[in-house]
């Protein structure tokens, strides 16, 4: 069970949240000019690293706002929480 530090509400139990998958995926600026491969990359292809992963979470049972989390997928340890639109923080190596 994760303890997630919502940037607006503070630390809450994981059951209040939903994970929204990989963060920082930007919708293409000119979608009408994309070919099939570029659409596939935008819609379906995802990073799936064993280690640090930047992902989106939403505080569904709280403030209902989205934010970003950097979490280690081997230890479930949350390394950083930051608001949408902010760049991912520069974390010192190593992750664990």
């Amino acid at each position, binding site marked *: 069970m994760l303890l997630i530090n919502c940037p607006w509400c503070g630390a809450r139990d*994981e059951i209040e949240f*939903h994970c929204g998958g990989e963060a920082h995926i930007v919708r293409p600026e000119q979608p009408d000019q994309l070919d099939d491969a570029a659409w596939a990359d935008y819609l*379906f*292809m995802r990073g*799936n690293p*064993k280690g640090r992963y930047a*992902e989106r979470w939403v505080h569904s049972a709280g403030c209902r706002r989205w934010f970003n989390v950097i979490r280690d*997928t081997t230890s479930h340890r949350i390394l950083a929480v930051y608001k949408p639109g902010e760049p991912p923080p520069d974390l010192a190596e190593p992750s664990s």
Partner: protein
Amino acid sequence: MKRFSFWSVARNALSSHAHWPRQWRSPEPKPAYDVIIVGGGGHGLATAYYLAKEHGITNVAVLEKGWLGGGNTARNTTIVRSNYLWDESAALYEHSLKLWEGLSRDLNYNVMFSQRGVMNLCHTLGDVRASRRRSEANRLNGVDSEWLEPADIKRICPILNLSPSLRYPVMGATFQPRGGVARHDAVAWGFARAADACGVDIIQNCAVIGLRREGGRIVGVDTTRGAIDAKKVGVVAAGHSSVLAEMAGIRLPIQSHPLQALVSEPIKPVLHTVIMSSAIHVYLSQSDKGELVIGAGADGYNSYAQRGSFHVIEEQMAALCELFPTLGRLRMLRSWGGIVDICPDASPIIGKMPVDGLYLNGGWGTGGFKATPGSGWVFAWTIAKDAPHPINAPFTLDRFTTGALIAEHGAAAVAH
């Protein structure tokens, strides 16, 4: 390979079973192989076995980073069925089910395949409509499927709570009588023993740390036990599919999630079929030891840690108590998690990769065990002939570009 028979069992019984030979060798890796299979779970071992049996390719190594069947093969809830919606999936899973039906004899190893039937419960009108449609689609594809009204369900499974006062009452079910369960460890061991007898080298404690390429072609692998050359490499790494693909610079649409399961204390026989409920979400069967084997939904976040969050199990227990009030006082013995590789359309990727000589069999998500023999059979064909069999031809990586997805979220039965 020393064959198992009535006489060999009787003879060894006289010496207290102390003189059985080892079931497979533990060879040192050779410098080069025709084919290397990365991953010694059920699917990888089945691939190696069918490469040798169907295609005469025996200069094969299976590289396993841990021990045989120590990953998802030993962590699933052992359910076997083929009641998938689309023609492509029905062909794949039904091919597998037909192989299951002769598997113990084929491998000379008792995989304890028990066709006790699989029942998928419906709790809402939408559930009923989707399930009846799937059931009719199954029949058109030659997959056995029946529609059960609550009275029929009561006859097959008397301990199920069919009260209309449930929050989501049971409104009916689809039933596949040929479905059932198999002994998961025996599947890995049976394939390993049979592949080894054909000359396949099974190398455990040997993790692949790199895929070596020259001029857009695979030439071998780097492992924790040194470099090994190979003309072809088949990746069957389940939860680690993305990690292996990344070694060859390939991005996949796969996300790795924890999927949890647990078993109860053993009790006398109360359940002689498999019950699955997608809507309120729990699925269970009773093992030969008497334990109830119970599966949960996938956790929402990515993980490689082989464990999930407790609230997932809590929700699954709530569903169990609702459907089976008589099991409410049962104690649970242990729970565990496996890492499942989930595709956006809940169907696997089985085929050639953009690098010559590299093949991938992954993305089975929450339901790969049932496909073990069929998956190995079509993947062996694909590697041997450098082209997919018609059964796995639709299951390409390219389908995410063309849009020809095979959406099986309904039939997958596990929420994710």
